[in-house]
């Protein structure tokens, strides 16, 4: 009802192609960025940690969605590419004194190179077979990092990095870390939105919808499939590098196969082929288990149970509820939370005069 389309007349192609064609949408975008930037003013450090974790997950999820949602190439190796970014950033910072704002894109570049390499099988195999091929990437990268001490920094496969600093401004609290993560997240978000509208993005979608048709129409499948892997892994690498600077440590156990599957879950729940959906999914998967802790344990306390006596039951109950909520959200809208959000928006489009 606020975002009325009537009266908006586009007179140029640029206006028609704009990311936010409605004036109100532009305002909404600016306001939401301002709200995000104002989080440290209202939230405590515990809540900020949650927000940071969600933003980190969002970046990785957007990256995976470019590959899986837009290009239609299933990947189980996302965690491995995050690992590459993470260790690249840590090595660059620890051994070569590279500042964090340079380490983040360089981690992405390294991951992009590795990702493109492991994307080569996608030229011959599709679907579930590709998933297994990328699964191999997960194990190979993990093994290499684990067994080459030059990369892993010793038997513990762990590299500590000093507190990142932006020209003397030490990023040492959850509040400050937000200002390290948020700009990257916003750039990642806007870049992904724009990517979908370019020639490259359309080629990705064409490959997803039917690769043979795309090839006949002049899309160079070889190039664009590898590009999709590279772009997606770049995002993963950036997320991994940020993770390193966020925790001040690079450790391969933070990016296991479980992580890869979790990211797949995020984009499926959030909505394949949607940037905002990736964010929704990241928030869902990161936040829900933690919210459930408060809800389930809070209600048990209200019902008069002592935590220690029912801890096991509660822990498993949470797991069951979490699983049920995943099934429920997919049953309500198989195309994800993004679609659900679309329904809500559509309902309010002509509200209160809908017909």
């Amino acid at each position, binding site marked *: 009802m606020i975002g009325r389309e009537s009266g908006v007349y586009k007179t140029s192609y640029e206006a028609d192609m704009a990311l936010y064609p409605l004036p109100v949408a532009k305002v909404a975008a600016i306001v939401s960025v301002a709200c995000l930037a104002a989080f440290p003013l209202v939230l405590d450090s*515990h809540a900020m940690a949650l927000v940071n974790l969600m933003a980190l997950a969002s970046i990785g999820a957007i990256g995976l969605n470019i590959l899986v949602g837009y290009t239609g190439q299933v990947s189980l190796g996302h965690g491995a590419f995050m690992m590459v970014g993470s260790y690249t950033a840590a090595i660059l910072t620890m051994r070569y004194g590279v500042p964090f704002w340079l380490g983040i894109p360089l981690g992405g570049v390294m991951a992009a190179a590795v990702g493109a390499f492991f994307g080569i099988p996608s030229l011959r195999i599709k679907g579930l077979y590709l998933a297994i091929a990328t699964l191999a990437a997960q194990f190979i990268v993990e093994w290499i990092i684990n067994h080459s001490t030059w990369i892993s920094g010793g038997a513990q496969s*762990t590299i*500590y990095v000093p507190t990142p600093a932006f020209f003397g401004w030490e990023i040492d609290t*959850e509040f400050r870390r937000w200002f390290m993560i948020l700009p990257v997240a916003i750039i990642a978000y806007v870049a992904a939105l724009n990517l979908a509208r370019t020639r490259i993005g359309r080629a990705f979608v064409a490959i997803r919808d039917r690769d043979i048709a795309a090839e006949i129409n002049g899309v160079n499948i070889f190039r664009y499939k590898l590009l999709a892997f590279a772009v997606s892994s770049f995002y993963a690498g950036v997320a991994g590098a940020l993770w390193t600077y966020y925790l001040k440590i690079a450790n391969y156990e*933070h990016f296991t196969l479980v992580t890869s599957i979790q990211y797949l879950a995020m984009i499926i729940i959030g909505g394949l082929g949607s940037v905002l959906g990736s964010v929704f999914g990241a928030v869902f998967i990161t936040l829900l*288990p*933690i919210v459930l802790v408060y809800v389930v344990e809070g209600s048990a306390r209200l019902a008069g149970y002592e*935590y*220690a006596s029912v801890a096991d039951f509660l822990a498993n109950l949470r797991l069951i509820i979490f699983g049920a909520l995943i099934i429920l959200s997919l049953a309500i809208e198989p195309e994800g939370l993004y679609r659900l959000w679309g329904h809500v928006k559509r309902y309010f489009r002509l509200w209160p005069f809908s017909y």
Partner: protein
Amino acid sequence: MRLKRWLAGALTLGVASIVTPTIAEHTVKIGGQCDRTGPTRLIGVELCPGVSDYVRLVNKKGGVLGHKLEYTEVEHGYTVDRGVEAYERLKRDGVVAMLDYGTPIVYALTPRHMADKIPAITPGFGRADSIDGRVWPYVFPMAASYWSQAGAAMKYIKDKGGRKGTRIAYLYFDNPAGREGIPIVEAVAEKEGYQLRHFAVPSPGLEMSPQVIDITRRFKADWVVAHLFGRSPSVSIKELKKAGFPLDHVISFVWGSGEADAKAAGWGDAQGYLGLQFAAVGRNLPVIQEIIKMHQQEGKEAPEYVGGVYYNRGVLIAAILTEGVRLAIQNHGLPVTGEKVAKGYEAIRNFDLQGFLPPMTVRPDDHEGGGWVKIYQVKGTEFVPVSDWVRGYREEVMGLVDKANKKK
């Protein structure tokens, strides 16, 4: 006017009467993480009740120097992001001492503990070189590191007749924690002239016959030192038994020496299997008896796992936490802060809880409390001690710690 004043007076009195007792009785907030749903849930569901039971016992007996402990457990399912959340939540709630659960989580949280000056107890989870408190002032492994465990296992072999040329197989889970024992095993083997070979078991470690055939047929090992996690210890027991290897020549590190491992392999097949322990095992211990009595007073029978390996490890953690808080209050007074608890830990001298613990002595340069373990053996359906508190090759271990920390 008069009514108003009277009301105000009554209110003040009322509020005062509510507030006063809480001022007189300072509660000390401590917290810990647990995994009850993740890959190490079999350990978590027994270890975590050990922690909370002991804290309850302390409170029932009047608290620490008259101050009640308030213990908060946060379950994180062995995931790193929820571990970070757990830490931030406990920090927000004013917790002064924490138990960190899970190797990847310990790694992720170490920088935070150092920055926020809240000491973490990381028994059997952290890296071996973190026992040097001059470099890691807020990390307290408080139990024998993998290096110390390797030293103790090698000493046991020496005591049982290890000599020049004895063949030792180091069977380990192929991850950083699994590889951690290698330098000590190697150093000792070189010193004593043993023949040593490594046998890596890739994750998840459910298939071990190639390694076992290698160990028993080709290498013809005299001893096996096993450092495995999860389900793989039970697989190693079964496979070694099947190959006819004498299990009383197999020594497992602490995460392969629980009842669950012997049970999964079958108690009958596990006879003779040796395992290292941080804390005494069984119910025949004063502390455990007190806990059982507490359960009975509450009208319940103590659960079966009370007195088991992992439960007792939980009691060990809580006992050290409590002792640290006690010394913090005694030496530095109220209010208790993270820094004071860290100093409290470092003031622990010969704390053994009537034989339940090794004689723990913690110093700024030794955050593992001496690096003691006790060796237990499977007999019947329980672990029985075959040694006193032991440690071995201390110079080699501490030398390695120094070397690792100098590199940084």
